[in-house]
């Protein structure tokens, strides 16, 4: 394309942001509403149900705690990867980005173990409203983790070429991917107590 869309990389002076930054935040707005609506459903169903399955007794708190730790750690490695980009330190970027993707993988594996244990004990989404919510919410969240891993994986390996040609643009992209990743972490921070502890 010969014409250039302005403000893809540089910030527009009067708004103070570039297109990508604004775009990702708007996307996150819709994600906030998506999970907000799910939580609205949770609240309504829970209030309407006098006998509610207690998360602690039906789900594995240690597993989930471990997963929380994993996801928080991956958020830190993500933000460190971005910092490495800003300092133009390629090898450090590679290292942190790899850890982020790997931690995402660990999260998914633990999730898988949790799910199979549930299935093994005869707990399915159709078992109860609580299980329905548990599987639907965590399933949707896991899809987000997967999507984040794909994006991060892209920047870790094939997409990293740009680091050498347009470092600032690349740093912006990593920041954008990071915003999504932190959001996924943030959702989990709420899912964890709501599903497992209450």
């Amino acid at each position, binding site marked *: 394309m010969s014409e250039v869309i*302005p403000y893809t990389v540089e910030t527009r002076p009067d708004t103070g942001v570039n*297109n990508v930054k604004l*775009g990702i935040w*708007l996307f996150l707005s819709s994600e906030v*509403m998506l*999970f907000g*609506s799910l939580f609205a459903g949770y609240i309504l*169903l829970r209030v309407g149900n006098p006998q509610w399955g207690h998360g602690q007794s039906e789900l594995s708190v240690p597993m989930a705690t471990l997963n929380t730790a994993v996801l928080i750690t991956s958020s830190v490695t993500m933000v460190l990867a971005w910092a490495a980009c800003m300092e133009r330190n390629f090898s450090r970027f590679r290292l942190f980005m790899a850890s982020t993707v790997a931690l995402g993988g660990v999260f998914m594996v633990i999730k898988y173990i949790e799910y199979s244990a549930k299935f093994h004990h005869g707990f399915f989404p159709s078992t109860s*409203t609580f299980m329905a919510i548990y599987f*639907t919410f965590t399933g949707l969240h896991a899809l987000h983790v997967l999507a984040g891993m794909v994006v991060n994986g892209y920047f870790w390996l094939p997409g990293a070429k740009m680091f050498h040609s347009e470092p600032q643009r690349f740093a912006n992209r990593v920041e954008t991917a990071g915003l999504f990743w932190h959001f996924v972490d943030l959702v989990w921070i709420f899912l964890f107590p709501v599903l497992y502890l209450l």
Partner: protein
Amino acid sequence: MTSIHPETQHAEAALDHSKTHHQLGFWRKYVFSIDHKVIGIQYAITGLLFLFFGFCLMMLMRWQLAFPGRALPVIGKLFGESNMPGGIMLPEFYNQLGAMHGTIMVFLGVVPLGVGGFGNFVVPLQLGAPDMAFPRLNMASYWAYFLGGVTMLVSFFVPGGAAQAGWTSYPPLANLVPTGQTLWILGMLLLITSSLLGSVNFITTIIQLRAPGMSFWRLPFFVWAQFVTAFLLLLAFPALQAAGVMQLMDRVAGTSFFMPEGLVVSGQVAQISGGGSPLLWQHLFWFLAHPEVYVLILPAMGIVAEVIANNTRKPLWGYRPLVFSVMAIGVLSFVVWAHHMFLTGMGTAMSAFFQTTTMIISIPSVIILTCLLLSLWGGSIRFTTPMLFALAFLPMFAIGGLTGLPLGLATADIHLHDTYYVIGHFHYIVAPGSLFALFAGVYYWYPKATGRYMSSKLGHLHFWPTFLFMNGVFTPMLIQGMQGVQRRLFDGGETYYHAQDVLWLNEVMSWSAWGMALFQIPFIVNFFWSLKRGAVAPANAWDATTLEWAAPSPPPHGNFATPPRVYRGPYEYSVPQHEKDFLAQFDPDTGAPAPVTV
């Protein structure tokens, strides 16, 4: 910046055009294009086709409503034994047609045409931008819409047919109907994805890609309308996304998000865990669907404003109140949704709340209509085809909007809820309202997209009968509704004693609908004939002021040969002491005093 002369610019752009476009093959240029104009036209054509399809579904239904139980001659047998045995419609087919008419008209017709079509084509041009902020996302958005549409169409052919629980898909019914409903959900999820991508793109484009000098208070009203619309889509659609996922789980994974305990379906106790709430769906659905109805109307209002300013040859009256009103509608539309749920057992406190917000949100609409109306005062009105449609919009929207008031007062809604009065209410807004505005938009921007005018003779032949027949379809609905005839009746009320007095109106409505179809032919002919034979239009086809008219027609890839600069507000028509009766936003003329907008 040098002065921009449409002619010289055309030449420059043509050069530019040949440079950039040579390499692109057919597929990249017309099918998987990332040019906002091509995508806009793709959206518009697809949207028009779906409108037409939705209309055809409705004409079929209108046969059954006018002549319940009578075989449809000639074509009736084509629909197969499972839908119309011997040409006689079955209730399950009627319900499919109804649900799909609603869904297709709203999500695949009007919104894609108004937002995807006109929004994509016009907004970047009016901003003076080379394209949308994220061209690739734009393409993805169109294709997600396209796939969503295909999914909806395919659903007619699965066993049991398409969705048949109404466009509102209320569970538990929606959980119990055949497979078509699952495809409906999948289709909706695709359409939602499309809208979300689109709205992120629109907002970013409007905030970031305004040309130098284009401050927010110089944006054309159409852009403002699209801006607010995009926010509505962005924040409201996820609610249906969540609800859709839950309904999908209910249907395929056997969960009970929307089903309480103790359901007895056809004499059998349902084998479900229970514990769900049917009202949860309604809350989430209407949290989307009320803002969605404003998505149907705001772009339409934007188009009407542009056309009125252009054809009265004077500034819009009350630009700022107009802008503040759309913003108010945008914010308030998130807190009125439960006025669709007054009769679900709502207590006084919440019903008072939602009635009050509903009444409050009607005020900005009144202000908008008043401003548009008073814009006519002192004008020099040209009755061009787009202007005819835009003018007709005003009283038609007025009827639709005003009939919203009794519905918004919960006590009156007891009598009117789920009757044809509701059907009459919103059709007055979306059919002779939004649809007319969209027609106005087609006639108005056609010269920009193709370089030729549409025929004004055929335009008049399209307008007058359509206007007449629209009222022939929708006024009787208000009468029937007042009598208490319920909506979604397969036999149009024939079974009910209380409908007998107004039953004859069914035939009136049906004949009007079919008559209206006849007079869409001039439009379709005009649309294709003018592509090659229409009168050639100059770049500024209507002596208009906004930036899209600075680009050549059709605008090349990248839109403007030299990036435009904006010198003034959007509607500087008939500026005193200026020799022409319009002073374009991109015209650097400094002779005139900088006028103050009223």
